[in-house]
């Protein structure tokens, strides 16, 4: 049943050269991480989204003081920080990638590995309000409306609000939204549904519900290779398995565990020294033999 697909941000190749350079530059700076656990290539951890506030703020005059102009930086770094938190969470089966055009829009895909929605692969987009983190909670919209009590059958939007009635900075983070999006497929909640049909079926006729879910999962899978809804270089694109491209990538992933230090041949640069014995707070407490060479 499962197509032998792979996911990649293959659209990278379509981008102009200059941008590609930056991306690879970015990739380089992020050390290979423990992605071996996962089945899929890790998304670029450090891709830098751009700042594009939806509402053009009144352009501040230069005479108006410099700090007036730092707003975009704060927003951008807030979102970057959120993104690094997502990466750190390593939510099973959930992948996101900020859009190239706006840091406020993230592309994502969720893999359901067991339960009613097993084998489901649902692409979605997260929309973050531009007054983040002081605004409403982010919206999460599935590309195709999944048959689910909490997913709007028309728009595909997930009812995020019920979990984050009020978005509180410092307490709420975007990874929680993603975790919530994953959980709804494992633990189904039917109270005040956006899709009453699904809710009722789940309560009254679980068999029919199940078959509808299977249909929905199939539908999503059949559209997997479609072009992304939004045209964006960082949009998540699926393509059939192509050994020419993917074999090598898979190989890389499986052998990625090498310490990056090994590749770094001894440089002349002296730095990063320590003679402190672990557990000690005394300088030069390390035994002679364990001295760094």
């Amino acid at each position, binding site marked *: 049943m499962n197509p032998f697909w792979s996911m990649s941000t293959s659209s990278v190749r379509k981008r102009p050269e200059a941008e590609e*350079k930056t991306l*690879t*530059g*970015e990739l*380089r*700076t992020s050390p290979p991480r*423990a992605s071996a656990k996962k089945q899929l290539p890790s998304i670029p951890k*450090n*891709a*830098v989204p*751009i*700042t*594009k506030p939806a509402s*053009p*703020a009144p*352009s*501040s*005059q230069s*005479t*108006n*003081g*410099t*700090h007036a*102009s*730092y707003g975009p*930086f704060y927003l951008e*770094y*807030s979102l*970057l920080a*959120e*993104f*690094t*938190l997502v990466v*750190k969470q390593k939510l099973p089966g959930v992948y996101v990638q900020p859009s190239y055009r706006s840091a406020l829009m993230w592309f994502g895909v969720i893999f359901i590995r067991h339960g009613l929605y097993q084998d489901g692969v649902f692409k979605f987009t997260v929309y973050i309000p531009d007054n983040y*983190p002081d605004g409403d909670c982010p919206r999460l919209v599935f590309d195709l409306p999944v048959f689910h009590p909490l997913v709007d059958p028309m728009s595909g939007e997930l009812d995020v609000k019920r979990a984050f009635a009020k978005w509180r*900075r*410092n307490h709420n983070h975007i990874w929680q939204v993603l975790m919530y999006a994953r959980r709804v497929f494992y633990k189904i909640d039917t109270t005040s549904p956006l899709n009453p049909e699904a809710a009722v079926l789940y309560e009254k006729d679980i068999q029919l519900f199940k078959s509808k879910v299977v249909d929905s999962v199939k539908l999503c899978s059949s559209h997997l290779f479609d072009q992304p809804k939004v045209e964006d270089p960082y949009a998540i694109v699926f393509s059939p398995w192509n050994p020419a491209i993917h074999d090598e990538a898979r190989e890389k992933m499986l052998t990625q565990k090498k310490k990056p*230090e090994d590749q770094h041949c001894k440089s*002349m*640069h*002296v*730095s*990063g*020294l*320590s*003679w*402190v*014995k*672990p*557990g*000690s*707070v*005394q*300088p*030069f*407490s*390390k035994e002679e033999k364990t*001295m*760094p*060479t």
Partner: protein
Amino acid sequence: MMSTGTSISKNRQAVSLQGVDPETCMIVFRTHWAQVLKILEKHDPLKNTQAKYGAIPPDEASTVQNYVEHMLFLMIEEQAKDASMGPILEFVVSENIMEKLFLWSLRREFTDETKIEQLKMYEMLVTQSHQPLLHHKPILKPLMMLLSSCSGTATPAVEAELVVLLNQLCSIIAKDPSILELFFHTSEDQGAANFLIFSLLIPFIHREGRVGQQARDALLFIMSLSAENNVVANHIAENTYFCPVLATGLSGLYSSLPTKLEEKGDEWHCLLKDDWLLSPALVQFMNSLEFCNAVIQVAHPLIRNQLVNYIYNGFLVPVMAPALHKVTVEEVMTTTAYLDLFLRSVSEPALLKIFLRFILLHRHENVHILDTLTSRINTPFQLCVVSLALFRTLIGLHCEDVMLQLVLRYLIPCNHMMLSQRLAVKERDCYSVSAAKLLALTPVCCSTGITLTLESQEKAYILWTKAAQTKDSCRGTSESTCIVECGRAVDISYLQYLWEAQEAILQCLKDCKVWSAFYDGENPDPDTFIQTLAEENSKDVEHPMFHLQQRTPSMCSSSQITPFSEKMQLELEWDDSYDTGISAGSDVSSPHPYDDQGSTEMQLPAEPPKHIQEMKKNAIMLIKGSYIEESDFQDDVMVYRLCAQKDAQDDDNSEKKTLNVARKHRVESQTVNNGPLANSQLEMDLDEHSKRNSSLTQGITKEQTNQKMIAVDPQPDLELKPAPQDADRNLNIRLLSTDGEDFIAQYDKIIKELDPNSASLEEQKLGTPGPVSPAEEEEDFENFSADTPSAESMSSPFGPKEDFFPKHAARSQSAPFTGPFISVVLSKLENMLENSLHVNLLLIGIITQLASYPQPLLRSFLLNTNMVFQPSVRSLYQVLASVKNKIEHFASIEKDFPGLLLQAQQYLLFRVDTSDAAEELLTKGNIQPDSSAGKGRSLSEASPAILQPFLGHKGKKSLALPSLPVHVRNAVLAAALFPEFLKELAALAQEHSILCYKILGDFEDYY
């Protein structure tokens, strides 16, 4: 007489033996030898009784010479078939021809010329022969005899030739280590030193010029050989003076370095390669240091350890330590600059380690070098700049031990913050709150002038490409994806700061992977910190091969922490006590304005006790009055000494003596037994010693006590003024008659005369109202430091020293203190408006370097503006706020502030251009390519390519606001720097917020 070597090479050019029948050659060789032998035997006293010693007719000598030349030529050209010797070589070996020839040259007068001749002959044989010669004893033996005959006194010409030959031999040995055996064996016959070619090279280690270089290269061959050959390593370590010569040679060379550097202008702060290449003495020293570095890199661990030990005990401790404590500011400054240069030039961790160990743990006259260096930051001289540069180097090493001693040890207990804040240490600033707060400190008055903002798409585009170009040259950046929206003003330079911040943090993260702990408020555990220290301290005495006096942890013996803590706990940790106030315009030192803090606690104790201020003022005024013009170092000495008084205040001399004795003994024992092998023995020695010491120190302590009583006793009230007056009188008297070198000696005297007085002053200041006997002090002290039973009960093999420690530890637990370094840097920073531009650049460089460290303890202390600290602890943020107020105040009283600011900004931009070129010169030897050739520069010079357009093509060489009085000029420049500094810090805070996840992520992978 023509030398053999040259004539042969002449022949060789003409003749080629290509294709000549080997047998013919053999026949020619034999007939030549027959001729030679005839003459040789004629003059051999054993064979010819009539032969007269020394009287050889010149014609016969030249005949031999000619024949030999031809013979050698034939021998060199002989091609060996398979592994066996060629017939000529075989003949040479069986007839022992080489030895006979050597004896012949001995028989004639063995002049330098003949020596050179022979040396050249062998060099040619060895390097040009087609078959290996050295395997044959009949060739090797006369060679060794020749070499040993050349040892001892030789003329430069012979030496040069000798070293060339030795160098060749070494390179052959390095290629074919099997020959090495032979060199050892043959020397048995000699009875002389075992490994002759090695021993012969040793005297040339420190030679300058080509000879020295060749000798060092040759030795390096042997050194790399030793790494794999234990016999060689053992021999060198045990039977030769290689290591001691190398190490003590450094001392010798150091002593010939200039003690005073020529005037470099006030911008100068460290020795760059261009500087030291101009000084032959320094070049020579650097060559030797480089050689040590190379030896340590390639040699066997045995040799490495021994050498490192000797450098420590034979150079750093006996030479560098006193040099760092010379009398004049000038000398001390020079030494500091040297030390900085050495640190930057040493690349081998083992060597760097002892330099750092020396700086961090060694005590000179009972004060840690580190503390002395720290205290100098607060001097008003160029010395401060040089010291700052040294610290910049130290911090740039990203060495855990350095950071531990300098900063982290004071932060580990976490008592600089409110208890509730401990959890916040690891917190990250998701929403750039800290960055926003830092940037909000930008004084309103500074936002005029040059602001580098983008407002239109067109401009954005132009500047954009520029930014991209810079970026390419420094490998990839993140900004390029950040497209600035049309019509929106964005600070361009801030992008550059972000990029640099990211670079710095990533580099630091990478380097800190080898660190032993996270320093995140949990590891090391704040609560067990003291305990661990105590345990380690007791252990320490037993183990290390250095037998150094370990720094008793958390006890900062010098200036900043005074043992008399009752007073101190009320004060800020501020180290104003030796801010002499000489720095420009600060004579009227106003109380620190903390208006915006609204914290009254902060305001109270901002200044040192009145009488100390008075003392300082008096001293300064007297000095200024007497010698207004820059009277060289006289006033420096005075003030500097007064500044450093506190260093000496902690004068538990008993300890010093103990250590001295111990050290002497150590050195002795080490010269006898080399290095670590002797450990067990040494330990015994030490044990014995500590017993002896304890009795010894008791005596001394008593003596001390008496002295103190005397010093303090007489009329405490009157003691405040005499010191400076005396000083003045003394100075005046001496000055009339001083000249030349006597100066130093006399100043020493003056200082000594001053000392007792000032020492008592110290005691005064420290707040014991009347004379107090040390015993009482101790008691008070104990009362104060209540709760460290575990530490107290510790046994102390070193007696007094250990006694000292627990109390200090206790103190550090109860009286929040972020360490002398932080406090002195922050206090200096607070005076930003009075500091010269260069001091500020270095300070800013150091603080940004510190703020690049990923350790949560450090990051939270410096960059988290939401942390709540103990009232006595000042944060960077508070200091910055204070500077902001000062700038705003200054702007309000200075008439044309906006105009001046603009000029200052233009000047700073102009500097970017020039310093950009200078940047390339800052190659710092071979190390630390990116440890920021100056973090000092990154500020305000941050984005050269971007900033240039504003300069109008650097056409006008705007000089640094020439017309202004110094204090206005400094203040304006500081005001121009300040907003840039804030941006730099904010950028670091922002980058930390997105990079800090890497710490855990990566460590997980590693551990």
